[in-house]
């Protein structure tokens, strides 16, 4: 180091961005001498993934900590200003209808806990991945996900004051039957090794399927007067760009490191496409049935965000590495005219035990569904909804009197039909250690048979009710254990939410 007189006023040389960023992140790391690498990173070899050079990791988003804080603080200032304004002006009164909020109940119960889970497990990657560059990227994502979870809690806090179903989202995520679908998905990812988590969440969830899972809720918010949720969505999207980039870099990095990684990663892509796709059935039902002002149909979203952008855009890129489109993707394509209807029917059947309400689509809504699904709606689904309308015209409301069989893997009640045949129920069985297990589809069966010792551990809500672990033998016992309060569940028409809405819009002549 020179000790000759350094100059007084100099224009300080600026290091190139890439080098400066590297000095501020990966260069902080060092090769340990007093402990072994294996002691420091004990979880990185058991999955069979091989990494020769962690330095090969590319950081396209070069965000240093000071820049992170500056940009994020600015974003939050803007977002909370919107939340405060909306609350102060009783903005919820300008929603399209109180029934819209059922979508947001599903969101805070089903999605917010996943943001939190991602926060916790990206922290795991920030500890357990060997490369300093992906570790830092994971740390940033962990902090981002905490932001998402908490801004969602705050965004929805105002709705919680005036409407049912929001009040016990965290407890319900742990206990309520339909929420074991997202809970088990993330538990599956978190209990897997670090590389599988990286591919399952960073790639499959945050890149492959993110638009399909996220955009419908945010667009739905925009179309239905839900300014806070829409603002949250915009605000979170720029974080999501970083996450998408991490996911894409993760998969390319691992594929480039060693050929042995290719089949392992292909297997994870195959598994996680299907696992996340099955969970997106809830989103499909929400989009087609729960929005008073619909944005687009599930079919249209699937074609745009998955078939066009992913199969048409991303997978040709990945072909270079020997990766093929996910196994069972053709089943998903074959189902796109059926998925939302079959799923909403399940929710409609069982919402007496849910923390949201459902309702039979009226004629106007059915006309839209007919238009969106010309090949299936009128033939297979309208007749059933018409039956419900008849029952309701007579003052009744049909709920399913019993408990459904759940798929051992995705944990959705088995209401799906064969991909190419809407009239035939889809059911698969497998045997493991002399016990029979049930799955809903080729995809879930394939997932089960790959790792049966994992899936037999599942805490299946219906089994647990029958085993007496859910508060007691009657429906009221179970609902109390779930934390469901009066007004949360059942049929929308005549519900507390609808009554409040009518009371708060005295000049409105909206039909029930």
């Amino acid at each position, binding site marked *: 180091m020179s000790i000759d007189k350094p100059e007084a006023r100099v224009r300080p040389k600026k290091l190139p961005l890439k080098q*400066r960023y590297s000095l501020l992140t990966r260069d902080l790391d060092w090769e340990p001498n007093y402990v072994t690498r294996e002691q420091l990173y004990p979880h990185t070899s058991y999955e069979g993934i091989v990494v020769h050079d962690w330095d090969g990791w590319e950081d396209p988003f070069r965000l240093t900590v000071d820049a992170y804080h500056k940009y994020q603080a600015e974003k939050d200032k803007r977002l909370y200003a919107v939340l405060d304004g909306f609350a102060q002006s009783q903005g919820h009164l300008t929603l399209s209808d109180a029934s819209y909020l059922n979508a947001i109940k599903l969101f805070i119960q089903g999605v917010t806990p996943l943001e939190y889970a991602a926060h916790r497990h990206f922290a795991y990657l920030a500890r357990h991945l060997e490369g300093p560059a992906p570790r830092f990227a994971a740390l940033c994502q962990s902090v981002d996900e905490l932001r998402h979870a908490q801004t969602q809690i705050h965004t929805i806090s105002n709705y919680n004051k005036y409407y049912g179903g929001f*009040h016990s989202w965290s407890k319900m995520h742990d206990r309520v039957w339909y929420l074991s679908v997202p809970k088990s998905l993330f538990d599956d990812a978190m209990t897997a090794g670090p590389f599988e988590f990286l591919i399952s969440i960073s790639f499959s969830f945050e890149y492959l399927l993110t638009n399909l899972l996220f955009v419908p809720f945010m667009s739905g918010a925009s179309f239905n007067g839900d300014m806070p949720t829409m603002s949250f969505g915009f605000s979170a999207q720029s974080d999501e760009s970083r996450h998408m980039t991490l996911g894409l870099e993760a998969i390319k990095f691992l594929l480039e490191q060693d050929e042995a990684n290719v089949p392992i990663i292909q297997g994870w892509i195959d598994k996680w496409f299907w696992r996340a796709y099955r969970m997106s059935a809830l989103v499909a039902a929400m989009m087609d049935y729960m929005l008073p002002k619909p944005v687009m149909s599930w079919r249209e979203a699937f074609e745009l965000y998955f078939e066009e952008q992913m199969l048409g855009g991303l997978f040709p890129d990945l072909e270079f590495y020997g990766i093929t489109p996910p196994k069972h993707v053709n089943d998903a394509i074959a189902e796109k005219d059926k998925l939302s209807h079959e799923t909403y029917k399940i929710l409609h059947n069982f919402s007496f035990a849910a923390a949201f309400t459902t309702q039979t689509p009226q004629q106007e809504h059915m006309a839209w569904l007919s238009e969106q699904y010309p090949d299936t709606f009128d033939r297979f689904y309208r007749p059933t909804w018409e039956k419900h309308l008849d029952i309701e015209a007579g003052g009744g409301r049909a709920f399913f009197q019993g408990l459904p069989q759940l798929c051992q893997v995705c944990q959705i009640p088995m209401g799906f039909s064969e991909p190419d045949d809407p009239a035939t129920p889809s059911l698969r069985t497998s045997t493991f250690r002399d016990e029979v297990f049930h799955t809903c589809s080729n995809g879930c069966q394939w997932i089960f048979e790959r790792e049966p010792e994992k899936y037999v551990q599942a805490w299946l809500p219906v089994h647990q009710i029958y085993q007496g672990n859910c508060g007691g033998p009657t429906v009221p016992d179970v609902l109390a254990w779930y934390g469901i309060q009066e007004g949360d569940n059942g049929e929308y028409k005549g519900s507390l939410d609808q009554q409040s809405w009518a009371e708060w819009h005295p000049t409105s002549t909206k039909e029930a």
Partner: protein
Amino acid sequence: MQYELRYQVLEPKRQSYQNVIDRFGDQPASRYLEATLDVEPRENFHYRPTWAQDRELYDARFSALRLTDPYSFTDPRQYYYTPYVTSRAAMHDEFGKSLGYLEDRNLLARLPEGWRAVLGSVIVPLRHLESGAQLVSVAGARFAHGTSIEQCCTYAAFDRIGNAQMLSRVGIAVGTGTDEVLVTAKREWLDAAHLQPLRRLIEEIMIVEDWAEGVLAVDHLDKLVYPLLYTALDEAALLSGAGSYSLIAQHFASWFTNQRRWLDALQTVWQADPENGAANTAHLDRIATTWRDRALEAVEPLAVVIDKQVPEAGAVAALEGLR
């Protein structure tokens, strides 16, 4: 003239989320509480971790230190994401201004030779120590039981990288915009005799399984490093014509004050816990015994080197005062 806006007043059905109401009654609650209490899942996990087959995904057994109710601890700073990033944006902005001032006048490179040597061979190499401390803190972010504790660990982990990056930027400034000083500092960290006990210590802390023990071990180290290098040395720098160092050190000292708030509060809560207080106190004593002396042994050589390079620094004497 005063006027009162007329607006629609609706009776809320409840003032907060049910879990907050259960603890504090049906009244408006802070954003901190709504975003922190009971957020972590508690039960009905679906699968066992393949990387820890004798644990659940969230498990009090990841540490010997336990709380009857994880939420008997809350962060005295009330940090959820927004106030955290807002506070740190302000902190980094001020640091940036200090550093910018020094860079424009090339003041760090023009420090007296002894002080430049202290920066190059003691202060700047600590960017690696901060990086190690981050690894330890982030384990708490994942494995601590309950959102209120893990959240503090999350922010601490991000802070450590922030500190490491601040030290790195100091190093670049000392090198008049080049990476020279960082390169030398890393070599020192890896090879220089005076830094090996410290490096050895942080490497051993990094592999401690109990996340809380790791965090506390780092804290015992911090309780020597920070007062010595960023407060005592700050004083000495001012008195010996090296005010530029003080301009930098103040930011680290003020971070340390902030860090103490949650860590001290947590230790108090651990000790006062109805079911686990006695056991926790015993563990805290054991941890102090194990790690405090090692911290002293690791920091002593740094003080010796500082006094050799800047005799008026009084580092060894200052360290004595911290025993």
